[in-house]
């Protein structure tokens, strides 16, 4: 933090100082201008929000079907989803990359977003929450002649708010921070995210590393996350405690 407002020559001083000696905002402007961080910001926010929204929709529908509707082979489907939960992104990166190549989605928003729209974790988390809803509540809605979609939107969703918020926050943070896939699927600044942009900025430096600018970039990447963290802390900790995956 301190180093982000210092001139470069003071950053690696011995002994180090923990309060800024010569505060300046230069490094912030410098970092912001030396790579298209504004664009990276927009890309990241757009990508993370789209993934969160998409996952909420697909996971809600699937979890609803798996908890409250009759499906032949429900156990088998759920078992498959549990397996899906255990397959890490790193393992399937090569085949998914090849799929993206076939679809012509390399270096595009689709490539960044679509592979993550379905989530075994999301289905799992929401199913746990939907199971908590008392059966009589659903039966009563059925007696009142509510359709399946009405039961979902009027009874189930309002009763699962905290699980939905937890899923949204966790997912937003994961994808905002995700590095591996965006690194592979993008190859121009136009589609790069903050994490990838920062690593490029870090490694592009020839000669003297602009540490102060890097620290400034670190700070402005972290700001939205910490805002989200303080607003949604309760849900985050709850989410980690109940599910604990990732």
């Amino acid at each position, binding site marked *: 933090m301190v*180093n982000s407002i210092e001139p470069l020559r003071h950053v*690696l001083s*011995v002994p*180090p100082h923990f309060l800024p000696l010569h505060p300046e905002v230069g490094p912030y402007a410098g970092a912001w201008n030396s790579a298209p961080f504004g664009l990276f910001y927009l890309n990241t926010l757009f990508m993370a929000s789209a993934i969160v929204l998409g996952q909420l*929709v*697909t996971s809600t*529908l*699937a979890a*609803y*079907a*798996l908890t409250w*509707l*009759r*499906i*032949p082979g429900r156990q088998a489907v759920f078992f*498959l*989803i549990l397996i*899906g939960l*255990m*397959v890490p992104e*790193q*393992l*399937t*990166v*090569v*085949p*998914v*990359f*090849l*799929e993206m190549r076939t679809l012509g989605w390399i270096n595009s928003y689709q490539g960044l977003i679509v*592979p993550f*729209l*379905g989530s*075994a974790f*999301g289905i799992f988390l929401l199913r746990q929450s939907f199971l908590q809803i008392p059966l009589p509540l659903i039966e009563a809605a059925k007696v009142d002649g509510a359709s*399946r979609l009405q039961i979902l939107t009027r009874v189930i969703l309002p009763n699962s708010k905290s699980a939905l918020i937890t899923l949204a926050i966790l997912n937003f943070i994961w994808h*905002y*921070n995700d*590095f*591996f896939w965006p690194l592979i699927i993008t190859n121009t600044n136009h589609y790069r995210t*903050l*994490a990838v942009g*920062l690593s490029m900025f*870090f*490694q592009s430096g020839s000669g003297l590393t602009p*540490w102060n600018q*890097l620290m400034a970039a*670190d700070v402005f*990447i*972290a700001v939205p996350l*910490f805002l*989200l*963290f303080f607003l949604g*802390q309760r849900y*985050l*900790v709850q989410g*980690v*405690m109940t599910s*604990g*995956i990732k």
Partner: protein
Amino acid sequence: MATSTALSTTEAQRRRARRLTGEVLASWLFLLPAGLLLLAFVFYPLFYLLYVSLLHWNLIGRARFVGLANYSSLLQSVYFWQAVWNTVWMTAGTLVITLPLAFFTAQFVHLELNRRLSGLYRSAAFAPYVFPLVASGVVWNLMLQKQGIANWALSLLHLAGPHWLSQGVWPLVSIILVTTWQFFGYYTVIFLSGLQGVPPTLYEAAAIDGASAWTRLTRITLPMISPTLFFATVILVLQGFQTFTQAYVMTSGGPNGATTTLVYYLYQEAFQFFNIGRAGAVSVMLLILLVAITLVQFWLSRRWVNYDQL
């Protein structure tokens, strides 16, 4: 009369049957979007991966079927085994540092701090977990420079700090440090929730029997939270075997491959050298390793994990 009741029963049955097929249809419809996406991007890729691993292919030319050649060349490759052992050591190092540290911190917070302070501590410990790993890598890179904060602190103790990121085993140690910093709070939170689930009556009974702190720890706390410990171990090992970002950002897998993890090796093969088939084979090996290690952990867990909770 009799006929009319018979008719209405069949009518009701038919209606119920129709409703049932309607419901089945609806549920498949609801499952469809998520199902198709998971099929396309999780399950199908696993099979596709097996196929790709049997090819010789550089993405540009024609793919050639080479059977198990990729596997046999991997097993003979010094670099592959180096990546395997780097990953194993990195994961083991993180495990033996992070879990005890997180456990004792959680124990301290649970026993010594009041509710407010422990809530505050939980937030503070959890903060690094939401910080982007890339950004942590950059910050740590600065701190571990030859003239960075880490070596300055060591010099206060009259110790000469190493070249953290370029000398001997230190690059590996540096990555373990960053990983520990990043995830230690997460495991503390998990352990805290485990500790909160141990009924206080057990400790009260032990106190009456005059049990020592050590006995309380080994006879009550550890057995009672063993499921949590087991869960944390499984997750940490799975995560350890997926380490990539730290190696990419801090050391680029170097020097001389000293911090090349399996996933970093996979990345290089696929996206720097474009040996797609070979990268596929690395993925399959990683999959086999992960499944094997997890199975062994479950098998071992029968000996030490206690599921007879009160």
